[in-house]
């Protein structure tokens, strides 16, 4: 398939390695990957703060850029931004042709691999991974098995037992409006991390928050996006 990457603002500006890993994994699964360059952000920061018009402005411009690409599907390495387009955007943009063109074909990465991942397989050194269920992905997109199935494509990866479903406390601008609370929420979750070799998730925003907290606490457990583990495991 010809796949358009929706890398999301955070990956583009802060964690490009996640975008690179996503593109490579998709290519290794046999897809042709393109990057529609006019894209920026899904508008979620403003939307979650209550600024709908401003969110719509940004969302519209990204959707237009995505819709202009000649692709069969879109893939984002972020459950939350996928949710924004698939679930919340409808209440924000009336009858937007770009939304109608993109939303039904936009997949979160592990969701896409579940359907179109083919025989993609790999291996890494034995590694127990604490997978973090990000909230939008779990409750809005209902993707619980898919990211775990994606990790299962990589031999050597085992799932660690921890408080996987509790909100990490990121919550978009919540993390700066209520920083102490946000950090307390992260701490409660991170306390259950135990001896896992890595913390893994499919939402770069949660991972940025959790990584920032672990670093502040001086904990060395690496924080890795699902795409990075898949990329490492499937290197040619």
């Amino acid at each position, binding site marked *: 398939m010809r796949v358009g990457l929706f*890398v999301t*603002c955070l*990956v*583009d*500006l*802060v*964690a*490009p*390695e996640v*975008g*690179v890993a996503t*593109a*490579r994994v998709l290519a290794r699964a046999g897809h042709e*990957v393109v*990057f529609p*360059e006019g894209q*920026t*952000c899904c*508008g979620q*920061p*403003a939307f*979650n*703060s*209550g*600024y*709908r018009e*401003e*969110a719509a*402005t*940004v969302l519209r*411009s990204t959707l237009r*850029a995505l819709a202009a690409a000649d692709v069969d599907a879109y893939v984002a390495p972020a459950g939350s931004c996928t949710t924004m387009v698939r679930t919340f955007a409808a209440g924000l943009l009336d009858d937007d042709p770009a939304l109608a063109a993109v939303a039904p074909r936009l997949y979160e990465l592990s969701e896409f691999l579940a359907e179109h991942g083919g025989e993609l397989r790999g291996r890494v050194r034995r590694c127990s991974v604490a997978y973090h269920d990000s*909230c*939008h992905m779990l*409750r809005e997109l209902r993707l619980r098995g898919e990211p775990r199935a994606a990790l299962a494509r990589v031999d050597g990866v085992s799932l660690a037992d921890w408080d996987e479903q*509790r*909100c990490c*406390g*990121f*919550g*978009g601008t*919540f*993390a*700066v*409006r*209520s*920083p*102490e*609370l*946000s*950090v307390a*929420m*992260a701490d*409660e979750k991170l306390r259950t991390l135990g001896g896992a070799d890595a913390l893994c998730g499919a939402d770069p925003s949660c991972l940025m928050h959790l*990584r*920032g*907290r672990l*670093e*502040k606490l001086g904990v060395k457990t690496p924080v890795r996006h699902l795409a990075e583990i898949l990329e490492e495991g499937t290197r*040619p």
Partner: protein
Amino acid sequence: MTDLVREAGTRGAPASSLRDRERAALAGSGHLQVAIRRSTDNMDGRWRGLRESLPGAEELREAARSLRSAAITRLPELLGQLADNVEAAGGRVFFAADADEATGYITELAQRRGATRAVKAKSMVTEEIQLNARLAEVGVTAVETDLGEWAQQLDGEPPAHILGPALHKTQADWVRVLRPEGYEGGEDPDAMCAFARRTLRPRFLDADLGITGVNLAVASTGTLVMVTNEGNGRLTSGAPPVHVAVMGMERVVADWPEVDLLLALLGRAGSGVNFPTYVNCLTGPRRESELDGPEELHLVIVDNGRSKILGSPSQEALNCIRCGACLNACPVFRQIGGHAYGDVYSGPIGAVIVPLLSDGNHELSHASSLCGACWEACPVKIPLHELLLEGRAQHAGSERALWRAWARAWSSPRAFALTGAPAGLRPPQALVPPPFREWAKGRTLPRREGSTFRTRWARGEVLD
């Protein structure tokens, strides 16, 4: 009493900011969090287990949602029918537009009856209208008879949870609170319970007024359905000569099949039991042929801001049956507890309805990470996280200029590309813009390694 607690018992805009209250709650010894975790994990875990084991739980929640929505849509009609049927059964009905009208009616009634002693079964709406304080002003002492609520009253604290008002209290707290009442035992729940029973029993028998809430009011028969875990509701409504039932106007249902479904969900979601422990269905006061029950029954139906929600995008908030499940599931409530919300209603449902009901404390809609755990737990499937977003949008404005500038920049790919900080840079604290400074207090700032994704793509560095 701490400031946090004092503000939680009042209505309107609290003096402190939400963030200050969060900080105050987090700065404690950690006892608060331990106590909340223990009780909410227990209740949430049981409800979760029941949801998973109950065949068709999802369909039941969906059915409850549509039944509640249908009832709220017909609210004026159903309330009219309810009032007619309560009156036909011999009760009296008063529609109170606001808290003053509601408390005014009840205090006048108390004075007319020469009442000085009242017993109360736990009711959130009476907390909302500050009934106890108004009764005290006319010389009526109201004693709470729900065990947890009684402890809160003795401690001078408002309830900290819709269903478990004292769930943040440890055994040691309980002993401290009961000591001045004459309790001499130790931290043994059974002994404390027996003491409470001994102490409260005569109060029921002496009371001039019994005041309760209403869980559901059945329009078709004029029946008030009241649920308790301790049986105190039955004594409160039945022993004193006058029963005053206070209900939020949204508590009406059309007919009995709804009661059946909603009670099954209320018990499961609220306390993790298949059916609520004590259910009282009261139709009118004592009849000629009956041995007990009150001489007078007064139903006070309280609006106090609810009709403003009707017809608004937040209407579904009125579907709430006050089970408390959303509080138990909430990762924010579990950190800060009920009092930090600055109102009698706390947790996700509090963060939704307090700004709507009181037209104040708008900040509360930000007391959520929007994780949706509340929505997942709610037995009537209220999309609380979406209503929180609605609340934020309703009161957006102070940051408008900032977001407008952001939208202008980020809707242009060229300007967007310029907003990325240079690679690998972690600017000194003083140069970090304010929102990121807040971030950086408990977390390291993210640092990009190498060029942005779009730059790498343009250079052909991305694919193998």
